[in-house]
């Protein structure tokens, strides 16, 4: 299928220099301040919920990098999430590694696995790529169950939830919230750096015009693999955090449904955005619960209807649709707005 590119959109993809409008910074700082203050105003349970939102946001951010910015669909990110979770769990349980020290290994292993996956994935596009990544989602629970001396098999691994540093005067839930918040902010910062820089432009070029990109001298294979690795790095770190916060890992928790949830969260938030990942995190965490409250007998039907609703009203996702609209008020022309997620070839 042919794609039509309008001239203004090309200009809009022009590089974002570090400067954004002053309003944007005020907004960002305000959000961070609110996020830091929230745990003290909410009950432990709500703090726990918000921690999970942030964790899912990090995972969805990974998926956004791959599918949104680089156009490679993945139905397998639940598997990479599990890899990160089990890395953390095994290190903590078997080797007594402190929880915060499990994040870098999870990131590294996630990256390595993503690159390994990305290499054969170079051959595939559209639904074929979907199948390859689907295989990852399906194989992961099987492999986890099989290597049970390491993974605890069906029984899973119980983890002791980390204690906050003494003297801070806050409880576990709030401490973990801040840990997750810091990791999320770091993730957003790193993602923004990558995506608004040369690498990000290469990603987007490959997504939209692979032949032109290659003709311009962009090493398509290298960047596509890099996109994969970066994406799975984020998701694996999210998985590690989830294991620490929940305190238990087992193969049942990383089913195909999780991979699909990430994809849906990504689409609802805005596939080629960074802020959309946070919206996606909220969607994944809260909408199934709301669906359950609304209907006891058919909760999934409500969840499905919610998906339809979001896709009809905001087909580019919440941030993808509202973002450009808001940007007109707050942004200068220099701000990068790869919000315009176009229909990528194939899938």
């Amino acid at each position: 299928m042919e794609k039509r590119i309008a001239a203004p959109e090309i200009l809009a993809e022009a590089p974002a220099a570090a400067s954004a409008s002053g309003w944007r910074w005020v907004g960002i700082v305000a959000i961070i301040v609110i996020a830091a203050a929230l745990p003290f105003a909410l009950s432990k349970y709500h703090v726990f919920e918000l921690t999970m939102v942030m964790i899912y946001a990090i995972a969805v951010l990974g998926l956004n990098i791959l599918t949104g910015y680089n156009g490679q669909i993945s139905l397998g990110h639940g598997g990479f999430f599990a890899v990160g979770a089990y890395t953390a769990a095994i290190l903590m349980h078997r080797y007594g590694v402190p929880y915060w020290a499990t994040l870098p290994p999870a990131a590294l292993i996630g990256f390595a696995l993503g690159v390994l996956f990305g290499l054969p994935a170079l051959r595939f596009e559209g639904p074929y790529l979907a199948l390859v990544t689907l295989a990852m989602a399906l194989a992961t629970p099987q492999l986890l169950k099989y290597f049970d001396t390491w993974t605890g098999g069906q029984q899973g691994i119980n983890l002791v939830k980390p204690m906050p540093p003494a003297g801070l005067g806050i409880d576990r839930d709030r401490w973990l919230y801040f840990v997750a918040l810091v990791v999320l902010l770091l993730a957003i910062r790193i993602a923004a750096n990558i995506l608004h820089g040369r690498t990000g432009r290469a990603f987007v070029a490959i997504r939209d015009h692979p032949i032109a990109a290659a003709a311009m001298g962009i090493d398509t294979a290298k960047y596509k693999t890099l996109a994969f690795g970066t994406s799975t790095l984020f998701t694996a770190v999210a998985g590690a955090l989830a294991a620490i916060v929940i305190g238990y890992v087992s193969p049942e928790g990383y089913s195909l449904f999780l991979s699909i949830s990430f994809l849906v969260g990504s689409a609802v938030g805005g596939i080629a955005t960074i802020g959309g990942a946070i919206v996606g995190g909220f969607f994944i965490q809260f909408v199934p619960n709301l669906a359950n409250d609304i209907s006891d007998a058919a909760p999934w039907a409500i969840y499905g209807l919610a998906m339809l609703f979001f896709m009809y009203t905001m087909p580019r996702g919440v941030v993808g649709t509202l973002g450009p609209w808001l940007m007109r008020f707050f942004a200068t022309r220099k701000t990068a707005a790869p919000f315009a997620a176009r229909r990528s070839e194939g899938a």
Partner: protein
Amino acid sequence: MHQFLQQIFSGLAAGSIYASLALALVMIYRATDLVNFAQGEMAMFSTYIAWTLVNAGLPFWLAFLITLAASFVGGMIIERVVIRPVENAPVLAAVVVTIGLLLIFNSVAGWIYSYTVQDFPSPFPDRPVFGALMTTRDLGVIGVTLLMLVLLFAFFRYTPIGLAMRAAAQNPASARLCGIRVGRMLAIGWGLAAMIGATAGVMVAPVLFLDPNMMGGVLIYAFAGALLGGITSPIGAVVGGLIVGVTENLVGTYLIASQLKLTVAFALIILVLVFRPNGLFGTAIVRRV
């Protein structure tokens, strides 16, 4: 040797189940350039309609025909009402919509019919053939699948509507200029796919037993089979489905770690795709600058 043959034949029987659903997937892909993840659940729902009719006392074939008609209409309505709004949206939005449909159908079926596993009558008798390597019922499934394949192939190749549908899918703008009602083609495409799915479901329910989660696993294998064969090729769908069935069986039998059957089977499929990235019978996507 006997065991080997046994597994091949079981694999063909299972594979024909995957192939029948894969045909529906290919149909929708050719008509609308979209993978319909809700295909399995739609087929399951059609089967429940048939089951309700049979339980109400209707003879099997009459119930089947009514189900086919209802599925055709249902498929068209879904295309018009549910898919139409996201037709011009990014592909991912359409994918999410089909996922939403999957959840809705599954949940509603569970709500209306409960999750108890039900018996479903088969039009084919259940007698062993080839010395217990297969039953007549398995042969029936293979036969109907092949029949659907032939009909589908002939439809796309030799009928005006089939040609119009292919045109509408490949190049909607030009097709419109030729006077083809693209919207109508899309709707018909979905209707036909729903009919194929209903046939698959009705054939398969006696073998798998009817419950809302009947098609969940089948969809995954059907998807793999359709892609292995080439997502644009009906022949590929059937061949792919059969290969997936046989591979899965052989791997399960001869692999030491049979708990990794699914993993290894998929790994093999992907290996084949690495050498033929568009599937065995698929057409390569040609990129123009």
